């Protein structure tokens, strides 16, 4: 599953680049992600939560800045982790490209996310998992932008964040008023920060 | 240490007491603790119906019940349907006469479900029979002989057979 997100901040590319490479600082931008170890500037350990209805997954694993190109301001973060209860594994390749645009910096993020194992093998929920994962990445982009904006000398360039998660593009919905993706977002935020969210019975 | 409990379940009229892990389901309790292997397990997610038994007279999926939940209750499995002298239950007899089985793996769940149906609805239509066994998957017979057997058994039971 491939996801594309981008946003623009009023900062020179070097300032934005500095924030990007500070992985311990940007890791919390990913909802449910937690860095537990940062050995050197390149290798990290941690875990990430993904909740799909009653199924609570915690992927424990590692991430690595596999590519850092100072000249083209391209960075690639490869992460992979296994669910602690053996229900599957997640693998992500996140590529950041910073482009200087007349004093501003556009941040293009391409995420290639793959789930394997029993959790990825439930057809009825496959649409949902894509939507939820898409929302997490869109959330990450928004939080990353906030981080970059809070960097001294950087303000938002007013460009709206285009989040274009793939599968469940916000359907035109004049009837129930809330698009699926927004609701998935609302649920995610509520899900993460409620105390140990849990379905109680079934 | 594994979470275990001692339970007593009356199976086909006989009280059986065992200490079991609480995660053990009722089907595996019958099959492996009591070695009563007539009840079969086909899917373990409540769809195929091969594990259907009666608990306090109600037809249920024994793979979707924990054995500890049957403590103090009555279970009837396929081994308990025929009479003590071995005479077949009218439903078993009708399955035999109408070729209502081939490989026999879905048969325990099918026979128990039909027996429960006929007890609660002595004169079902073909549609009612097909709905009652729609929760029991059979890959061999194509269901038609089973429906014939159920209607045949219903007639026999109504005539006091």
């Amino acid at each position: 599953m491939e996801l594309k997100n981008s946003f623009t901040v009023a900062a020179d590319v070097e300032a934005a680049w500095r924030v990007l490479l500070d992985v311990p600082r940007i890791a919390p931008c990913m909802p449910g992600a937690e860095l537990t170890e940062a050995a050197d500037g390149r290798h990290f350990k941690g875990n990430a939560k993904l909740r799909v209805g009653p199924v609570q997954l915690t992927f424990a694993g590692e991430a690595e800045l596999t590519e850092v190109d100072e000249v083209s301001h391209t960075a690639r973060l490869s992460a992979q982790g296994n669910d602690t209860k053996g229900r599957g594994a997640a693998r992500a390749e996140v590529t950041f490209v910073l482009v200087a645009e007349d004093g501003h910096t556009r941040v293009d993020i391409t995420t290639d996310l793959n789930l394997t194992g029993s959790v990825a093998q439930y057809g009825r929920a496959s649409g949902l998992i894509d939507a939820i994962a898409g929302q997490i990445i869109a959330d990450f982009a928004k939080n990353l932008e906030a981080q970059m904006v809070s960097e001294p000398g950087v303000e938002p360039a007013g460009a709206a964040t285009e989040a274009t998660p793939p599968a469940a593009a916000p359907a035109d919905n004049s009837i129930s008023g809330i698009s699926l993706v927004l609701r998935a977002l609302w649920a995610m935020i509520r899900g993460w920060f409620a105390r140990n969210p849990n379905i109680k019975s079934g | 240490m594994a979470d275990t409990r001692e339970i007593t379940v009356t199976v086909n009229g006989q009280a059986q007491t065992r200490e079991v892990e609480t995660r053990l389901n009722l089907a595996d309790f019958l099959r492996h603790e009591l070695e009563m292997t007539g009840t079969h397990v086909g899917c373990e997610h409540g769809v195929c119906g091969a594990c259907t038994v009666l608990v306090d007279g109600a037809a249920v999926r024994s793979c979707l019940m924990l054995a500890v939940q049957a403590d103090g209750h009555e279970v009837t499995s396929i081994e308990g349907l025929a009479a003590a002298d071995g005479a077949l239950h009218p439903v078993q007899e009708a399955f035999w006469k109408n070729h209502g089985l081939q490989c026999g793996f879905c048969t325990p769940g099918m026979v128990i479900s039909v027996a429960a149906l006929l007890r609660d609805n002595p004169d079902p239509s073909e549609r009612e029979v097909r709905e009652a066994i729609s929760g029991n998957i059979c890959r061999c017979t194509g269901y038609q002989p089973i429906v014939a057997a159920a209607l045949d058994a219903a007639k026999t039971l109504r005539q006091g057979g």
Partner: protein
Amino acid sequence: MKPAPFTYHDPTSIADVVALLARHEDAKLLAGGQSLMPMLNMRFVVPDDVIDLNGVADMNGIDDTGEALSIGAMTRQCELATSETVAARAPIVQQALSYVGHFQTRNRGTLGGSLCHLDPAAELPTVAAAYDAVLTAAGPDGARDIAFADWPLAYMMPNLAPEEVLTRITLPYWREAHGAAFVEFARRHGDFAIIGVAALLAVEGGRITRAAVAVGGADVRPLRLAEVEAMLVGEAPGEAAFAEAGALARKIDAMSDAYVTAEYRQRLAGVMVERALAQAAERANGEG
């Protein structure tokens, strides 16, 4: 596919349940087991503790309060399906139940279990949505009533705090003479609905005076079609009104999965809303 180990609890009172929930952080409540047990067997759900509700007193029973049907969360689906009271006061519940799984699963499955599991395609949540049911949960600070509109938070996530248990469901009666219908399209008898519709229509003097239309299976939660309901009030029950309702229903928000596209769900929603309204109308003036 055997469950991972857990500690089993069999409380006998609601207070015990709430206390257990407070004490055990990663616990699941076991009701009829028709939804939770498959997830335990497949190890999708791996709780430390399983709290069995089957021994808990006063979570069972069907009461006609004169205003509403008040149903214990642990009431078995088969009991609802054969209850005289339900047949008399809310027959749509029994129509919906005929689509729920198979008689073997309805012998154990409960109303509360289905509403807490909240599978997007489940029939009973759709009926609860159509009735504006009120769900009562018990927690450390006592009981809390939740309107069904606020009940589904997200995909299979009800509005229950970790220390709360659903104890009772109330379906408020429609005062007016009305007709009700539940229709569903599924691939096989007993399967998950691709689209299910619960429709209630009050008709007086040849005009629709009140309408409730809920669609299940399209989105992560049952959806009340407010716009359709508004459009119907004042209309004469008949093909024209119901065709228009169907066309509106086709614009519903719908999800895709590996088998069914959003477009097909939307197309089906239109067709099934139209059929449900026709049936409800027949029953409203005593024909059906």
